């Protein structure tokens, strides 16, 4: 199924929003306005966008330590995210969560997660709710190549498979787990080699091609909505940013990174080419979109800067529901 032109413009806007959000965060972290452990999604924008563009608000996603892109793609508000990264009381978590714990349950965002492999079991639970309550909602479980080795991920895929839960396991294979190349952490090249182990479909796509991601995700999601159970969808990509902001990146060369920023690799440039070719957008349209995203970012930063810090009295609030 092909997205409508309108949807494609929306997808482009989402990708640009993620890109500009992350660039802004990079800058603010490097200059000290933002602290804590921050992992950027730069270069991987097509995955979250391609997948989440086919979701409903009532669908859920579980995310990772590298969560900003997933959250934005699922509708997360950049000003509330920004305020959270600034540790302000207006932030998504009132300043208590930070980058690794942003959530918006009303939008179906089960939260970023500081534990590699923490998300997959949670995703099965949300999918159980979807199935149990007789909806055809689905759950997307994002995880990395590194996380694919974690036992919890295996357990979750097995549980989803045996219970035919409506989950799509989206393996974001950026070829590296923190600083360790994929070839040093698993012998397989494609994570879909593991799908047969759960008797579920495994699909591998170019994760920098948003159209390919969209198409594969649409299919996997339809499969899930029809009650046919989970799919393992691998999206091959590259992490343009270091593992975290501040990573000296001794494990790769600047040239490698540069190559992935080129027009034939960068997911946004590639999508621009398609949009131009199909005459859906002009260069001027891109500029307009970028400007509007820039404005959104500036406003988000301003919102964050102008917001108050949490009061120390909030330290003990919200440990329990009373």
């Amino acid at each position: 199924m092909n997205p409508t032109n309108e949807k494609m413009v929306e997808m482009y806007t989402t990708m640009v929003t993620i890109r500009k959000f992350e660039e802004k965060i990079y800058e603010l972290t490097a200059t000290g306005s933002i602290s804590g452990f921050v992992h950027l999604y730069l270069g991987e924008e097509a995955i979250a966008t391609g997948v989440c563009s086919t979701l409903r608000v009532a669908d859920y996603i579980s995310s990772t330590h590298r969560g900003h892109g997933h959250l934005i793609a699922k509708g997360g508000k950049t000003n509330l995210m920004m305020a959270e990264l600034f540790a302000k009381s207006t932030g998504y978590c009132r300043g208590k969560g930070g980058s690794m714990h942003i959530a918006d349950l009303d939008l179906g965002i089960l939260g970023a997660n500081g534990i590699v492999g923490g998300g997959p079991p949670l995703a099965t639970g949300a999918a159980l709710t979807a199935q149990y309550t007789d909806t055809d909602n689905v759950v997307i479980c994002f995880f990395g190549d590194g996380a694919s080795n974690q036992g919890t991920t295996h357990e979750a895929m097995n549980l989803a498979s045996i219970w035919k839960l409506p989950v799509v396991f989206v393996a974001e294979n950026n070829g590296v787990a923190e600083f360790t190349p994929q070839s040093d952490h698993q012998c397989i090249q494609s994570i879909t080699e593991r799908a047969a182990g759960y008797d579920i479909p495994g699909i591998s796509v170019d994760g920098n091609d948003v159209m390919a991601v969209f198409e594969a995700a649409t299919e996997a999601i339809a499969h899930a909505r029809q009650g046919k159970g989970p799919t393992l969808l691998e999206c091959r990509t590259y992490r343009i940013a270091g593992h975290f902001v501040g990573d000296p990146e001794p494990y790769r060369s600047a040239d490698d990174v540069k190559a992935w920023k080129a027009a034939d690799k960068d997911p946004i440039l590639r999508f621009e080419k398609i949009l131009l070719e199909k005459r859906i957008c002009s260069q001027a349209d891109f500029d307009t979109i970028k400007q509007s995203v820039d404005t959104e970012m500036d406003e988000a930063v301003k919102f964050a800067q102008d917001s108050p810090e949490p009061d120390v009295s909030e330290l003990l609030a919200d440990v329990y529901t009373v």
Partner: protein
Amino acid sequence: MSTMTLSAAINDALKLELERDPKVLLLGVDVGFYGGVMGVTAGLQAQFGKKRVRDTPITESAVIGAAVGAAVTGLRPVAELMFVDFIGVALDQLFNQAAKMKYMFGGKAKVPMVMRTCYGAGMGAAAQHSQSLEALFMHIPGIKVVMPSTPYDAKGLLISAIRDDNPVVFLEHKMLYFSNGEVPDESYTIPIGNADVKREGKDLTLVATGQMVGFALNAAAKLSEEGIDVEIVDPRSLSPLDEDTILESVRKTHRLVVVTEEVQFAGSGAEIAAMVGEKAFDHLDAPVTRLGAPFCPIPFSSKLESEFIPNEEKIIKTVKSIM
């Protein structure tokens, strides 16, 4: 009112809650068709079907995690961890996810789930099937830790736990499953966080948990023959801990012994003893004394295991040591 076992009381609580609220569901290894390895969930799958009473693969991280994920999206799952000793393969989902979600998300989540599990020594089940690990859970903000000692308490507390909007660890002593008690037939709740004075007395306060409550009652009966009148406080939940009831008792008796089955060192009894030592210092006529298990894994041999578990005789000795 019926006389029933603690196991039956738990079964009854689960049944009543499954009947009351369609959002309640059970999941765990062999909780369904077989009715639980200890028989606690017997008959529930037959009554409520496979959708609501679910057998799972042996993947405790996924099971506890599924309960957390289901809870945060609107259900009220009750997951069974077959033995508390197995928590080592699933702890993350409980202590980093369930416990912290609400706080990390700035209050915008609730996680109404229960993890039921059985614990305790006495069955010759050895080092990996006999532990009492309540202290581990107690130290984690965001979860509640409940530990009933009677069928009556078990039923009322479990119903409260299921209705609670927070993750609750519900600890069932395997040797208590077949202990009997009077239990109302209807549904009722006992608030989590209220200790119960299981025996009134004026000479010494004895705080005891789980299986130790019964042992303490027997010891108290014998001690009363010797003129020592012991008051027994059962916290019933360790987190939240009802400090007031314990302190009130100590302010009356001026003496405290804390008896727990867990390994004593760095156990739940340490918190109770330290808390009283701090908040009732001026009321104490003798050192707050703990009696727990020695610092070793649990041995298989029932001879050694009996030596490991605190018993009536040791309770009596400990009480006398500070009179």
